[in-house]
């Protein structure tokens, strides 16, 4: 099976490297960036299954990165990391179609892995549901034909 690819974006190099390490060790294919602009370029050149992005960053913030990613790769799963676990952030993130929210600092690497897995699952389910609903008219036509 082709390994799941993850793009980690955090202006904090330590965090980016930590996420890279933890996820790589768990078997994910990881690209980590500390510059969101570079990350946006990455998104145009390579397909990722999951975008793990910090919200608060200078110049280009996490929400910008998310909206660019969803433009170029609509199916991508998005997991947001934030030091500000505010309701505002959460609501905005949900509106952006984010699949998970991870509060920094996370206690153990397990917490990170759990959140990544959850986000991927949620994203998969969402995509399946969307596909099913897209196929629904076709089903209906077929049923009508066979009937």
């Amino acid at each position: 099976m082709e390994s799941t690819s993850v793009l980690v974006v955090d202006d904090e190099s330590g965090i980016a490297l930590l996420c890279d390490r933890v996820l790589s060790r768990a078997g994910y294919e990881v690209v980590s960036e500390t510059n969101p602009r570079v990350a946006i370029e990455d998104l145009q050149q390579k397909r990722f299954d999951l975008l793990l992005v910090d919200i608060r960053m200078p110049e280009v913030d996490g929400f910008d990165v998310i909206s660019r990613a969803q433009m170029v790769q609509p199916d991508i799963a998005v997991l947001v990391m934030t030091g500000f676990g505010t309701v505002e952030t959460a609501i905005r993130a949900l509106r952006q179609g984010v699949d998970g929210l991870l509060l920094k600092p996370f206690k153990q690497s397990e917490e990170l892995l759990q959140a990544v897995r959850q986000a991927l699952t949620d994203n998969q389910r969402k995509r399946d549901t969307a596909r099913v609903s897209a196929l629904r008219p076709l089903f209906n036509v077929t049923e009508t034909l066979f009937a």
Partner: protein
Amino acid sequence: MPTLPTIENQLKEASQLTNAAWAALVEREAGKWRVLANFRLAKKTHPVLVNFLGNSEVDAWLSGALSGGQSRSVSLPEPDTLRAGRLFAFPLLGGSRVVLVGASQLSSESQRLWRLVISAMQMEVPSLEFSPSSSVAASLLVPDLDSESPYDMPRALERALASFVRLVSVQGGWMAVRRGDTLQIHAQWNAPSCADLALSIDGNTILRRLARNLTPMVIHRDNSLWEEIPHKGLKSSTKIWACMPLIIGQRLIGVLALWRPTAFKNDEWNRLTDMATQIAPAIETIITFAEMAGHLRRLATLNDFALTVSSGRNLDQIARHMFALLSRAFGTELIVLYLLSSDNRLLSEYRLKEGTMISSVDSAEEHRVAPLLASNHLMRLGEIGGEIQLPLYAKVYSGLYVPLRFRGQTIGVLCVESLENNAFNLYDENLMVVIASHLASLADYTRLREEAEGRARNLGLIHEVVQQVIGLTNPHEVAEITSDLLAQYFAYELCSVFIADERGDLTIGGFGGTSQSVVKRAMKSFEYPLRGGITGHVFETGESVVVNDVLQDTRYRSIKGWQAGSEMCVAICEGEKILGIVDVESSSRNAFTHNDFIAMESLGGILAAVITSADQYQRLQVMISQLSSTQVELQARMAAQRSAENRLVQAAKLAAVGEMAAGIAHELNNPLTSVTGFAELALDDIPQDSETRKDLEIVMREAARARDVVRRLLDFARQSESARARASLNEVVDDVVALCRHLIHTTGVTLKLDLEINLPWALLDVNQMKQVLLNLIHNALQAMPSGGEMIIATESVVRDGRDWIVVSVRDTGVGIPKMDQARIFEPFYTTKGNQGGTGLGLSVTYGIITDHGGQIEVESQPGAGSRFKVWLPQT
């Protein structure tokens, strides 16, 4: 020579009249003196006198008196033995006899009297031939000692007239004595209509001719002069009317008139004219005697008056004594004394009524003696009448009215009246003038003294009022004390003081005087404010009045049970404002003098000052209390302001610290995450038995701790977004207690809940409040490591005009040192660093509470425990 008893009588009479100690008739015979007759010469004194006279010097002195025929006097060397200071010698002419008189002093009048007595004795010298007429003349001079006035002229004249009548038979007759231009008939025989007639000499032809010619006249009925006979009472049978002058030298001293139906025979006529000639000197003597007696009487009166005046203490007493004197002197009780008051407004009247003296006061105006006072002339009336409405008593025939003048001013009038006709002569008038002048100065002096006493009393009252009333702030007290003092000082029957209240009504009153109870009772039936009447008039106009007779004043309103005579009412004024009145009433009319009025006005002035200052004092008091309450309020406001400022500063400080802490926390977040994360990764790579593993585990644990701190800091910074709803604080307490009950129990602490039932709900973030309570409970438990008691209480309280809900957590733990109490809410300030305290619990609590608009306070006693009190606004 008259008989010895007659002589002794004469000596006695003259001695009594002249105040002589004794008198004696002595005779020198063969070179020795002997006493022939005496009066009041004691037996023991007898030889002493003879012995004294035997002294050659005295003998020579007396002989000298005899030969010269002149009376003389000498001081006695031994006044005690002869009981007199001075010896007077009156020699009898043509003999060796001398009348000696022992007396302290003899006035010239008295000496003259004695000389007269001696001359009467001389007429009886035995060497003279006896004649009937001379014996009649001598008998006239014998005083009638049984009568009240021994030298009674009318009686002597009657005896003289009787001797004429005995000489010849007549139908009637009279004898008159000349006094100036008139003949006063003093004796009449069978002609009562002539009694007491006063005949004018110039007004009658016969008398005029008689006085000019000094010869007897006989008038027949058919003579034209018959019509001129100056009296009535002649019978139709009377044909002859004769009159003869009584002459001394060329002087007419009296007239004798006789009438009968037939003419006088020659020998009858000779006898009559002889007798008239003989008797004239005796009559002259009698007249002189009578006048002397009158003079002496007047002198005695004056003397007594002088004594009276010097002993009299007040006007009443002097008047009483003087009245007694005058009534004795003039034989009448009809005496009145009028005295003007110093302001000439009132007239005091003193008069005798049935032996006692009564005095009354009246208005001087239009008084019946007012014209007398104005005319300023003495009046002597024989027949009362004329312009002045006198007499003062009924049925009087004569009166003497003497003005009292002092320093050119008439200050009164002394009036004596008599039921007898012509009771007063010129001498009486002179006497009265002397008495009146003395009385005037005395009355003026007494009046001045009484006035001075009155003023002193007025001043005393004012002084007393000032002492007792000044400084009083209660107008009731002022009114009561003043009216009491008024009654005390002036003995007025009714004194009242009224003071207006703040509405301007005269409701505040004080009463004094003997009739106060009557008026007090009557006052209850009056409706306030006190309007009408004299007092009402004064209160309305501010014009003070004295009413001498209230019944004459239309403004007067009577009070039942109180009979007022006069009233004095003054206003208590402060500038234009009338503050009250002082009213004094007396049952008698004219009771108040001008001085009383002036005193009352000054009293009014003082009361005005007292009342005004009392009023101002009270206003000042009100202002002071207002100011002090304002001050208290201001202080409270300032304190509230200060504590609000303190809280604001504290909040700003905490907010700044919190913000910084949040920033730091955020900055720390990422490195901490890295530390934890990489340490974990490193641990995975290190073999299980590696030494490094333990070190890494320490790194991880410490990093985790640091992360906890950061979390909490972030919680603190995140407080602004809280979800509030109306909730019950009691439920919050219950929830938290339920959570902690196990923990509390295990630390050996007993918990008491004291929650107010029906505690109002408040707008709360329940979770945050739970966190607050958890923090406080946690702190309390940590303060009681070896157990204790914890009380959680809720209540609703009003403070600074706002409604609050208070929850308090109290422990019996170690307490908080004073120096720490101010700082415990600051972030990172901890006293439990060694027990893992972060110094954020209370600062987070503080943040939550201030965010709710509330306050947190701590009271703590090191060693006794602490109490945290959370105040949350009810709305």
